[in-house]
C-alpha cells in the first residue's frame, strides 16, 4: 500500500486533504491529536507521489512522525510541545525512548558517502547522509538501521543502544550501474561490447610493491607480468597484454609494451603512485584499443587517478614498513665440489691438482681456518642482508560543490639487500576540479615525482661474480683487507670499492581539461598536457687496487672515471573531443569525435672524463682535460597527429553496437605511408534482457559479445626511411680525422605494423554473487618491422622492413564470487589465461638464432613461438663403450657418462642441423587467485599467482659443472653426477676443460612453471567506539608477507622462476614482511 500513487499534483492544499486522499485510495487510517498536529497547515505537492513519498515529505517538511501499525497510522508532531493526547500517548512513550543516533557512512576507501539513505527497519523513520557522509536520526536503541546507496551493497546494522553508528558500505561490483573506463570516456559495464578488464585502485595497494607492474601481476586475465626483481628504484617488470604481439627488437625493447595512458596522457607505468590510482582498465581487444590507433597493437592500460568528493576535508594516511630478504639462496657444497673436481681431472686424463687430492680435501674440510682453507662460495651469505623499506602516502581531499581538491604526498625509502644500492622516492600530486558554471567544468592536475636511486657502478660484475670466477676467495680477511679469487675477482670488491652510480629521475606532468556542455547530451572537452621527464645519471668508477694476500693476485682499476648522462624528454599532448549522448525511447546513441596531437622531443647529452684527483672529487670538470675526455649527445623528435571517432548504439539496452576508427599520422614514416586508418566494430547481445531469461532467477546478467578491429604499432627507429651517413674516426699519424660512410641501408617504404584482432566474449552474473567473464581472441600482426637479414655482401646493416607475421590466440577466464553471511564476508577471485604464440612468416627468411653454444640460444622461426629455446635433444647418458660406438657423437673421445645428444635427422652426424625447439621462453598459461575473508574487524586475504608452460635455460657456471671454476650447485656435486658407481645419476660425468656435455640442450632447460603465494595479509580495523574517541574515521593496521613461498622446479637450483634465462646475473627477487597502518579522519 505504501507504493500506491496518489494524485497530489496540487498547490496550497492542506495536510488534512492529503490524509483524506490517502484514506480514500488505501486501507490506511490516520490517528492524530489535532492540538498536536495542525492538519490545516497548507502544503504544496507538485507531483504524483506514492504514499511513502508523501509521508517522507511531510516528515521532512513539517516534522511529522508516522508510525504505521497494521492499517492505522499514528501521527505525531515531534516539534510541537502541545496536545499530548491519549491517542498518541503510547506512541510518544516509545518515541521518548528513542535516542538521537549519529554517524558517518564511508566507502571502504574511507571516502565519505553523501546521500546514503538511512532507515529504521520496520519504521518510516529515516534520514540520509549529508555532504560529509554524516547523518543523524531518532530511533529506539533496540532498532536496526538499514543503509542503502546506489552502487553499494545494502547493509543492516543493529543499534544496540549506541548513540553513534558508523558504517562502511561495500561497493557492489556486480552493480548494473558500474562504469568502466574506456578510451576517451567511460561506459556502463553492462553495455560494454569489448574486452576490457578493470581493476580497482585499492586492489593495487593491498600489498607492498616497488612498482605498479608488480601490483598488476595476476590481477587480470590476459595480462602477463614478468617481475624481474626488486632492485631499489630501478625494479623492472615486463608487461604483456595477450602475449607477444610482435617480434622483439634489441634496439627497441619497448616494442612489445602496452600503451599506458594516465588521465589521458601517455606515461610510463612505473611513474605512478599506486595510492593515487582510482581504477586501472586493461583494454585488450582491438575494438577497445583501435581508438588509440597506431600505438595500440600491444593493448592499452588506462589509469585514472583519485579525485576529491565534495565535503569536509578527508585525511588519509597510508604507511608501511617492510623488511626485504632474498627469497632464493643458491647453495654450494665445498666438499662435494672438491671431489667433483678430482673426478673431473681424472676423467680428462690430467694429474689431480694438489688442492683436490683426498688428503687435501680432508685437511680443507676439517680445518677451522677459513682464511687458509676458504669455503668454495660464501657470497650469497656474505653479500645479502635484510633491508628495510618504508612507504608513506598522505592525502587530503575535500571541497565544495564548486571547487574540490585532492592532494597527496608520498615518500618511499628502500634500502637494498646488497650494499651500494638504495632508493629514495618522493612525489606529490594535486588534482583539482572546478565548476565554472552550470555548463563548464575544469580539471587541473599536477604531478611531480622524483626517484633517486643508486647502484654500484660495476653492478653487472657484482651479480656475475657471485657465480663466476670467484671460488675459494676470502671475502675479507680478519685484518680488513679484501680477498680475491685466483682469477682476481670478488663481487664484494665491485660492490664496495668500484664506485657508485647515482640516477635521478624527475617527472613533471601538468594537465588541464575543460568540459563544456553545449546542449543536452552534447559536450565538448579539450585537454592540454605536458610531460617532462628529466633523467640524470652520474656513474663514478673508483680507482682502487686490491691484492689478495693468499693468491697474490691484484685487481686494480688504475684510473677513476666519471660518466654523466642527461636525457630530457618533453611531450605535449592536445586532445579535443566532442561527445554526444542521447536516449530516444528504446534507442540510446552515443558518439564521439576527436583529434589528438602529440609532440615528443628528446635531447640527450653525456660526458666522460677520467683521472680525478681522488675518488671523492666527482665533478666532471675536475677530470683530465685531455684526449681521454669525450662527450656525446643528440636530438630526436617525433610527432603524431590523429583523428578518431566512435559510435555506440543500443536498442532496449539489449542489442549493443559500437564502431571505432582512428586516422593516425606519424613523423616516423614518409610519403604516402605517413597516415593510416585503424577501424573496429563490436556488438553485444544481453540475453538476460530477453523474456526467455527473465524468469530464470539464477541468471542475473548474461551477455554475448564479439569484436573485430585493426590496430598499429609505430615502434620503429626514427628516420629509418632516410639514407644517412654515419661518422667514424681514424688516425693518420698523430692526428685524428673523421670519415663519413653509410652503415645502414635505408628503407623509404617503411610503414606501420598492423594487428588484426577478433574477440568473442561472454559476461555473466549468476546467483547474484558469481560473475564470469570469458574471452577468446585471435590476433594476427603482419607487416612486422624487422631487420630482415640482408646479404652481407651489401656491406651495410639491414634496415627494418615490413615483413614478419605473428599470431596470438588465447582464452581468458575470470571468475568472481562474494558473499556476506552473518558477520563473515568473503570473496574469491580467479583468473586464468592461455596464450598461444606462433611466428607465421618471416618473409622466407630465417630462422634467426641468437645466442651461442655457451649461452641461451633462442630461435625465431616460422611455426614456432617467438624466441623459443633452441638446442639439442638428449637421450640420457652413455653407459657403455659399445653404446658410444653404435651412436653418433658430437665430438670424438666420448666416454660412458657423457651426454647422448639425439641425431634428430638421423644422418649419422650430430651438428646444428639436429637442433630443435627445446622450450618456450614466454609462459603459455598465467593465472592468479585471490581470496578474502572478513570477520568482525579482522580481514585476511591471500593471493596466489603463477605461470605454466615456460622454460628457463641455465648458462654459465650453473651449466658447466665446475669446469671453469664457477659456482656449482650442491644439486650437481652431491652424488648427482655420473660415475661408474652412480650410473643413474642425473648429471653427466665431469670432464675438466671439456664443454661438450654443456652444449645447448634440453638438459639445460628447466621447466619454469611456478605457483607462488604472492601475498598473505591480515588486517585489523579498530572498533568504531574507540576510533570515535580519537576523533577519527578509520584506523586499521595490517601485516603481510610477500613472496611467501614458490613451488617451482628452479627451487632446487636456488633460482627464481621469473628471472630471465642465462647466467643468473641479476638483482634477486625479494620477500617482504610488512607492517602497515591506514588512518582516516
Amino acid at each position, binding site marked *: 500500500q505504501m507504493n500506491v500513487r496518489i494524485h497530489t499534483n496540487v498547490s496550497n492544499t492542506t495536510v488534512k486533504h492529503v490524509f483524506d486522499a490517502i484514506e480514500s485510495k488505501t486501507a490506511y487510517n490516520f490517528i492524530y491529536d489535532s492540538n498536536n498536529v495542525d492538519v490545516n497547515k497548507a502544503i504544496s505537492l507538485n507531483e504524483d507521489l506514492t504514499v511513502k513519498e508523501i509521508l517522507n515529505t511531510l516528515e521532512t517538511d513539517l516534522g511529522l512522525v508516522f508510525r504505521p501499525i497494521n492499517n492505522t497510522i499514528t501521527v505525531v508532531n515531534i516539534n510541537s510541545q502541545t496536545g499530548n493526547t491519549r491517542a498518541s500517548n503510547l506512541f510518544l512513550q516509545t518515541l521518548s525512548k528513542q535516542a538521537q543516533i549519529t554517524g558517518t557512512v564511508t566507502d571502504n576507501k574511507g571516502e565519505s558517502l553523501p546521500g546514503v539513505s538511512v532507515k529504521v527497519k520496520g519504521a518510516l523513520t529515516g534520514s540520509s547522509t549529508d555532504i560529509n557522509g554524516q547523518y543523524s536520526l531518532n530511533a529506539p536503541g533496540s532498532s536496526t538501521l538499514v543503509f542503502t546507496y546506489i552502487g553499494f551493497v545494502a547493509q543492516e546494522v543493529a543499534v544496540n543502544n549506541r548513540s553513534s553508528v558508523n558504517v562502511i558500505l561495500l561497493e557492489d561490483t556486480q552493480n548494473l550501474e558500474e562504469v568502466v573506463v574506456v578510451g576517451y570516456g567511460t561506459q556502463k559495464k553492462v553495455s560494454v561490447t569489448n574486452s576490457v578488464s578493470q581493476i580497482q585502485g585499492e586492489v593495487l595497494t593491498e600489498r607492498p610493491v616497488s612498482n605498479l607492474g608488480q601490483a598488476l601481476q595476476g590481477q587480470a586475465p590476459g595480462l602477463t607480468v614478468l617481475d624481474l626483481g626488486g632492485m631499489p628504484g630501478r625494479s623492472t617488470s615486463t608487461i604483456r597484454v595477450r602475449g607477444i604481439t610482435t617480434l622483439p627488437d634489441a634496439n627497441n625493447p619497448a616494442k612489445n609494451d602496452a600503451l599506458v595512458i594516465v588521465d589521458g596522457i601517455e606515461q610510463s607505468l612505473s611513474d605512478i603512485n599506486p595510492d593515487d590510482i582510482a581504477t586501472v582498465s586493461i583494454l585488450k581487444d582491438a575494438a577497445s584499443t583501435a581508438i588509440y590507433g597506431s600505438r595500440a597493437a600491444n593493448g592499452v592500460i588506462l589509469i585514472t587517478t583519485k579525485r576529491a568528493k565534495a565535503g569536509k576535508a578527508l585525511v588519509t594516511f597510508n604507511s608501511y614498513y617492510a623488511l626485504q630478504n632474498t627469497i632464493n639462496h643458491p647453495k654450494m657444497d665445498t666438499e662435494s665440489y672438491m671431489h667433483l673436481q678430482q673426478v673431473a681431472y681424472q676423467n680428462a686424463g690430467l694429474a689431480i691438482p694438489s688442492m683436490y687430492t683426498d688428503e687435501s680435501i680432508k685437511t680443507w674440510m676439517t680445518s677451522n681456518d677459513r682464511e687458509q682453507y676458504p669455503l668454495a662460495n660464501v657470497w650469497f651469505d656474505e653479500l645479502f642482508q635484510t633491508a628495510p623499506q618504508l612507504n608513506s602516502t598522505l592525502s587530503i581531499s575535500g571541497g565544495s560543490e564548486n571547487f574540490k581538491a585532492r592532494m597527496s604526498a608520498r615518500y618511499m625509502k628502500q634500502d637494498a639487500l646488497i650494499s651500494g644500492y638504495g632508493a629514495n622516492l618522493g612525489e606529490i600530486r594535486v588534482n583539482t576540479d572546478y565548476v565554472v558554471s552550470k555548463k563548464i567544468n575544469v580539471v587541473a592536475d599536477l604531478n611531480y615525482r622524483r626517484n633517486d636511486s643508486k647502484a654500484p657502478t660495476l653492478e653487472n660484475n657484482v651479480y656475475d661474480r657471485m657465480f663466476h670466477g670467484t671460488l675459494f676467495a676470502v671475502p675479507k680477511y680478519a685484518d680488513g683487507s679484501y680477498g680475491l679469487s685466483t*682469477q682476481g675477482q670478488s663481487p664484494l670488491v665491485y660492490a664496495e670499492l668500484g664506485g657508485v652510480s647515482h640516477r635521478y629521475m624527475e617527472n613533471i606532468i601538468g594537465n588541464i581539461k575543460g568540459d563544456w556542455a553545449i546542449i543536452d547530451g552534447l559536450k565538448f572537452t579539450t585537454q592540454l598536457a605536458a610531460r617532462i621527464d628529466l633523467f640524470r645519471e652520474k656513474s663514478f668508477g673508483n680507482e682502487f687496487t686490491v691484492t689478495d694476500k693468499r693468491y697474490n693476485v691484484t685487481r686494480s682499476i688504475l684510473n677513476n672515471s666519471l660518466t654523466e648522462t642527461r636525457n630530457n624528454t618533453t611531450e605535449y599532448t592536445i586532445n579535443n573531443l566532442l561527445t554526444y549522448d542521447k536516449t530516444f525511447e528504446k534507442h540510446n546513441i552515443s558518439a564521439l569525435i576527436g583529434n589528438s596531437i602529440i609532440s615528443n622531443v628528446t635531447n640527450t647529452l653525456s660526458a666522460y672524463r677520467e683521472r680525478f684527483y681522488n675518488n671523492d672529487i666527482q665533478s666532471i670538470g675536475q677530470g683530465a682535460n685531455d684526449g681521454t675526455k669525450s662527450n656525446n649527445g643528440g636530438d630526436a623528435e617525433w610527432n603524431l597527429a590523429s583523428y578518431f571517432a566512435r559510435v555506440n548504439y543500443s536498442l532496449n539496452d539489449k542489442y549493443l553496437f559500437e564502431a571505432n576508427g582512428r586516422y593516425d599520422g606519424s613523423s616516423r614514416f614518409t610519403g604516402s605511408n605517413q597516415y593510416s586508418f585503424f577501424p573496429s566494430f563490436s556488438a553485444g547481445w544481453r540475453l538476460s534482457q530477453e523474456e526467455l531469461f527473465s524468469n530464470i532467477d539464477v541468471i542475473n546478467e548474461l551477455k554475448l559479445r564479439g569484436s573485430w578491429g585493426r590496430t598499429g604499432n609505430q615502434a620503429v627507429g626514427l*628516420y629509418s626511411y632516410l639514407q644517412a651517413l*654515419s661518422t667514424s674516426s681514424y688516425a693518420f699519424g698523430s692526428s685524428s680525422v673523421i*670519415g663519413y660512410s*653509410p652503415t645502414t641501408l635505408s628503407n623509404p617504404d617503411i610503414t606501420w605494423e598492423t594487428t588484426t584482432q577478433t574477440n568473442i566474449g561472454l559476461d555473466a552474473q549468476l546467483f547474484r554473487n558469481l560473475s564470469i567473464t570469458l574471452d577468446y581472441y585471435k590476433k594476427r600482426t603482419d607487416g612486422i618491422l624487422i631487420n630482415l637479414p640482408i646479404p652481407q655482401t651489401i656491406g651495410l646493416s639491414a634496415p627494418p622492413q615490413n615483413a614478419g607475421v605473428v599470431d596470438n590466440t588465447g582464452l581468458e577466464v575470470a571468475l568472481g564470487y562474494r558473499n556476506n553471511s552473518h558477520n563473515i564476508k568473503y570473496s574469491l577471485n580467479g583468473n586464468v589465461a592461455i596464450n598461444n604464440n606462433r611466428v607465421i612468416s618471416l618473409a622466407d627468411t630465417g630462422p634467426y638464432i641468437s645466442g*651461442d653454444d655457451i649461452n641461451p640460444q633462442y630461435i625465431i622461426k616460422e611455426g614456432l613461438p617467438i624466441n623459443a629455446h633452441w638446442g639439442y635433444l638428449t637421450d640420457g647418458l652413455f653407459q657403455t663403450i659399445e653404446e658410444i660406438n653404435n651412436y653418433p657423437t658430437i665430438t*670424438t673421445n666420448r666416454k660412458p657418462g657423457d651426454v647422448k645428444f639425439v641425431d634428430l635427422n638421423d644422418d649419422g652426424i650430430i651438428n646444428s642441423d639436429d637442433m630443435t625447439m627445446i622450450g618456450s621462453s614466454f609462459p603459455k598459461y598465467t593465472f592468479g587467485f585471490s581470496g578474502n575473508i572478513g570477520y568482525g574487524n579482522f580481514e585476511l586475504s591471500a593471493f596466489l599467482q603463477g605461470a605454466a608452460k615456460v622454460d628457463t635455460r641455465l648458462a654459465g657456471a650453473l651449466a658447466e659443472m665446475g669446469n671453469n671454476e664457477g659456482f656449482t650447485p650442491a644439486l650437481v656435486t652431491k652424488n648427482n653426477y655420473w660415475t661408474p658407481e652412480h650410473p643413474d645419476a642425473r648429471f653427466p660425468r665431469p670432464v675438466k676443460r671439456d664443454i661438450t656435455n654443456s652444449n645447448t640442450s634440453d638438459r639445460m632447460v628447466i621447466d619454469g612453471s611456478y605457483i607462488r603465494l604472492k601475498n598473505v595479509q591480515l588486517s585489523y580495523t579498530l572498533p568504531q567506539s574507540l576510533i570515535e574517541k580519537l576523533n577519527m574515521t578509520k584506523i586499521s593496521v595490517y601485516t603481510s608477507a610477500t613472496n611467501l613461498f614458490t613451488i617451482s622446479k628452479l627451487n632446487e637450483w636456488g633460482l627464481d622462476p621469473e628471472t630471465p634465462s642465462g647466467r643468473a646475473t641479476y638483482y634477486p627477487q625479494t620477500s617482504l614482511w610488512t607492517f602497515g597502518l591506514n588512518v582516516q579522519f
Partner: protein
Amino acid sequence: CKKDFLNTVPNDRLSGEFFWKTEEDAELAVNAIYPNLDAQSQLFLLDGLTDIAHVNQFFAVSSQVEQNVYDASSSVIASQWSAAYKGIAAANFVLDNINRVPETETNKVALNQYRGEAKALRAYQYIKLAASFGDVPLVTKTISIQEGKQLVNAPINEIWDFIDKELKEAVELLPSTIEKGRISKGAAWALNARANLYAGRYQNAIDAAQKVFDLNLYHLYPRYEKLFSYAAEGNEEIILDRQYLKDVLSNNVFSTMAPYSQATSTNTYVPTKSIADLYPMANGLPITDINSGFDKFNPYIDRDPRMRYSMFVPGDVLPDGKIFNPLPKSGTPDAIGSTFNATSTGYTIKKYINNEDLANPANNGINSILIRYAEVLLTFAEAKIELNQINDQTALNAINQVRQRGDVNLPPLSNTLNREQLREAVRKERTIELAFEGFRMFDIRRWKTAETAIPGSVYGITYLDNGQLKTIEVPSYIKKFDKNRDYLWPIPRNEKILNTNLVQNPNW
C-alpha cells in the same frame, strides 16, 4: 603547418643527399674506409686458428674453429665474411660517387689519390676473401638488396685478376710518399705482390716486389725487438699499418694479450710449442740438430733472438718487472691451470706488448702493422724459388737480408742450397719472421701443409717437474683437419640462405 609537423628533419645525422659536393667530401668518405683495416686482434685470431698459436679459452667461439668442430653457421666465419664486405662497401661508396665532385685542375690530383686509395683498400679486402673462401661474389659497386640476393660466386682467378688490375690502376693514381697511414704507391705494389704470391702468379709477384724495391723508400728496421714498439711507429720498414692513437682511437692489445699477471684480463691467443721449436739456435741450426747446442734444460738460451722478441717464455722479465713464471705449480697468477685466463701453453705473445701500456692496459695506441718490407723480401724470394730462379742469388740474398737484420744477426744461408732446401728455408723464415702477424693461415693453405701442421694436440712449454722433463699438453684438445674440405672456409650459412645462387665450397 600540418605537413611540417609530421615531416621532422633530423639534426643528428647527415643525409646522403647533401654529400659529394666538394673534394673534402671525397676525403671524408675515403677516411671512412680505413677503419676496416685489420686490427691486431684479427691478425692474432688468424694465427690462433693455425699450428703456431692457440685460442686460449677453450669455450671461446673461435676455439671451435681452431678445433675444427664448426660448420657454415659459425659466427666467427660469418664475421670474417661480413667485415671484408663492409670494407668493400665503404670503398664502393667512394668509387661510385667520387665522379659527382666537380673536377678542377686544383683538386684533380687529390681526387685521383682518393680513387687510388679506395681501389687499394678494396683490393686489400678481396685478398683476404679469396684466400679464405675461394670463389666469392665480386661486388664492385653499391648494390641493392635484390642485387645482393642474385650475386654468384666469381671464380677465384677472376678475383685475383681483378685485384691485380685494381692495384695496378691504384699505383698509377697514388703518390710515392703520402700522409702517414694512407695507402701509398709502395703499399699498392706490396699488396699486388702479396696477392700474386697467394694466387701462385709468381712472376707477377716478383715484378711487383721489385717495384717496391725500386722505390727505394723502404728498408729493414735494424731492431726486430723494437719493431712493434711505440718508438718504432712509422719506421722505414712499415709500408702500411692500421693506425691507432692512445686515448682517442685506442685498441686493447695489451689487456687481451699480455700475460694474465700484467693485465688481470685474458690471454686470448697464446703461442704453441710448434712455433717455439721452430726458432733455430743463434748459430742457425735447428734445435733438432745434435750439433746445435740446444739444451733442453735451458731451452731459451742461444736461440734465434726473434724468439724472445716475439713471445714471452718462462724467465722473461714482464712489463711490471717481475719474472714470467707460468709453471703449473709456480703459484703466480700466470701458472698454467690456475685459471682459464692464464696461458694454457706457458707462452704468450710479446709483439705489440709495450711496457708503456701497463698503466692503462686497455687504452693502447700501438699501430697494427699490415705490410712491412720483410714480407716483400720474403715474397720476392719465395716466388723466385717457386719459379726456380735461384741462380741469380737474389732470392737467397732477400732471405739473408731478413736473417741478418741488426739485432737478429743469424748466419746467412749457404749459397749451395738447392731449390727444395731453399723452399723449406724461405717457408721457415717466413713463419718465424712474420709469426703472429696473420700470415700463417694463408701460407699453410697455399703450401698445402695445413693437413700435416694442424692435426693433433696442442703443446706448450717443457719444464722440470720433480727432476723430470714434462711438456704441457692442452687438455682434451685435439685438432682435426680434413684436406678435402678445410683448405677453404665455408660460405656462411646465412649468406647461402639469403642468396641461393651461391655455391658452397666442397664438402661443407
